[in-house]
């Protein structure tokens, strides 16, 4: 292993490891505050997630959405943009996919309908992503604030449309789509019976692969990372920073929008108010822990999905809200240890003056 690669790996892996240790200790304290034994609760958490097919299926389902939102956020960060809008991009993607699914004829071949609906989801997310991109490039409006504000605007708008025009009586969701449903995993592997895991997971892995290829193996991706590291230098080197930012926000929004496929086409077959349920915000955590690398994002998505499903498994002993505390602790600990680890490693690598 070359020493450069080793240095990169150390810088990438130490912060999540530190965070995991801190979270384990906090978890211990919370569990003991409830008068339970940490070992028992942690064992339950693992058994309820990776220990049985249903739990594992749920983990895969939750990890699928988080992979999309995590990829979306990390692509933005690689370009030097902080997309806090994955939540509304995800919702918009799911909404547009459901809208198309409602409009498509049931006689259309399923595979074509699915592909059309997937494109629609990406399109929905891309539009919501393009707005902050455009405002940033054109007016210099900071994308963090614009995406936060857009979350509220887009979600309110979608709620209005569903409430005023589209909802089924007595519910907050649309009717079921007529075409475009994605098969669940339990139709191939009966052991997954009852879990929401579906073939969208394949789309998530393909998207992760494509995101890796785009960022690390294409000229556009090289430009994107150059702008993320040093926008002024990239501009001087002939890269159009505005163009890169616009592309990055559209792509980021599109990837987040694809996440809507998992719920709308793969699980419920309808759009429901609030289905995003914080997955967009958790995408920030996934990107951070996954160190903005597609492989890391997939692993981090599995980790946060395990935590979230694990909360349900331990609920009889310790309130499931414990995992929400731990999520916050992990994000804080990673955010705090990234600059610290970098500084310590850099210091230790400096040749010692004789």
């Amino acid at each position: 292993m070359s020493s450069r690669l080793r240095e990169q790996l150390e810088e990438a892996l130490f912060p999540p490891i530190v965070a995991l240790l801190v979270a384990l200790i906090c978890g211990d304290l919370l569990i003991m505050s409830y008068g339970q034994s940490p070992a028992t609760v942690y064992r339950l958490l693992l058994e309820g997630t990776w220990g049985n097919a249903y739990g594992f299926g749920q983990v895969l389902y939750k990890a699928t959405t988080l992979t999309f939102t995590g990829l979306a956020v990390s692509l933005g960060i690689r370009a030097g943009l902080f997309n806090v809008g994955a939540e509304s991009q995800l919702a918009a993607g799911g909404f547009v996919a459901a809208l198309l699914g409602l409009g498509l004829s049931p006689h259309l071949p399923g595979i074509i309908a699915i592909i059309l609906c997937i494109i629609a989801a990406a399109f929905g997310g891309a539009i919501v992503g393009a707005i902050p991109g455009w405002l940033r490039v054109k007016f210099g409006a900071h994308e963090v604030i614009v995406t936060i504000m857009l979350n509220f605007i887009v979600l309110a708008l979608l709620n209005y449309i569903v409430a005023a025009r589209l909802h089924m009586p007595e519910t907050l969701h649309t009717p079921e789509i007529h075409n475009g449903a994605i098969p669940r995993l339990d139709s191939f592997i009966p052991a997954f019976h009852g879990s929401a895991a579906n073939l969208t997971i394949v789309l998530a892995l393909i998207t992760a692969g494509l995101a890796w290829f785009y960022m690390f193996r294409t000229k556009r991706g090289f430009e994107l990372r150059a702008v993320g590291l040093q926008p002024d230098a990239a501009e001087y080197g002939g890269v159009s920073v505005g163009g890169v930012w616009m592309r990055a926000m559209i792509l980021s929004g599109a990837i987040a929008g694809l996440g809507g496929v998992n719920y709308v086409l793969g699980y419920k077959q309808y759009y429901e108010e609030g289905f995003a349920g914080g997955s967009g915000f958790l995408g920030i955590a996934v990107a951070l822990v996954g160190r903005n690398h597609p492989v890391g994002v997939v692993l981090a998505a599995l980790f946060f999905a395990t935590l979230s499903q694990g909360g349900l498994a331990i609920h009889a002993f310790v309130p499931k809200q414990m995992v929400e505390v731990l999520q916050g602790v992990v994000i804080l600990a990673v955010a705090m240890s990234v600059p610290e680890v970098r500084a310590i490693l850099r210091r230790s690598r400096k040749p010692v003056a004789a």
Partner: protein
Amino acid sequence: MNPISFLTQMLRISVPYLFAASGGVIAERAGIITLSLEGYMLTGAFAATLGTHYTGSPWIGLLSGIFGGLVFGMIHAVATIRYRANQVVTGIAINLLAIGVTRFFLKLAFASSSNSPRIEGFGGNNAWHGFDNPLLWMGLLVAPALGFVLYRTPFGLRVRAVGEHPEAAASLGIKVSFIQYVAVALSGMLAALGGVFLALDQHQFTDQMTAGRGFIAVAAVIFGRWDPVRAAIACLFFAFAETLQIQLQGTQIIPSQFVEMIPYLLTIIALAGVVGRAVPPAALGKTAE
């Protein structure tokens, strides 16, 4: 529409915004991005509920609410100042943490996942229309007071210097991180008071009772261009729109969802600079090495 009841309702809605926006202004003027107002408010509301529930005194509740905000403010301060963590990420993490912590301890303290039992509050004399609540008066006075501190005291001058040009401030002997610690601690305590008002006004804590008010305060800070008094005017305006929507409910002139969007739309417009560009403090978000 009764103008007196309209005004009192508007003021009651504006108080949490006024506290939280003042908290946002002081921390951001010291150069620390503060998206965690929502988390401070929620913690403040919960701590106030605990304090009032166990002692029966809303004044103790008020103090414990401030303490709750101080603790979360210090988490933000230590993470972003001592450890140079990304200020946006830290703010979002604090919001998530606040939701988790309040839910967990709501379950632990009151064995409920939705709300606390009824607690004492301030006032309650109907003839006073809520004006017998000291927190209402504090809320109305906090912005002018903060304006005085920022523009008329040596401490305020230091805060502004640190937020605009930390290197220059440091070269004049100002302890940059100390000023930032104080500003962020103040921001946590001020925003927490917004949550305290909510909990004592509704006489209980309910899960996620701040319901995005912290982000409306963030919007007010930007729309008010990081000035305490202008931010307060933005808060009053947002509260006015909300009151109008509540009073018009049933008439269905404008769907409530569109009224909800007003603060956020205005903030984006302000940032894009259509009517006078909103320019943040020069060193906002940049941590000194």
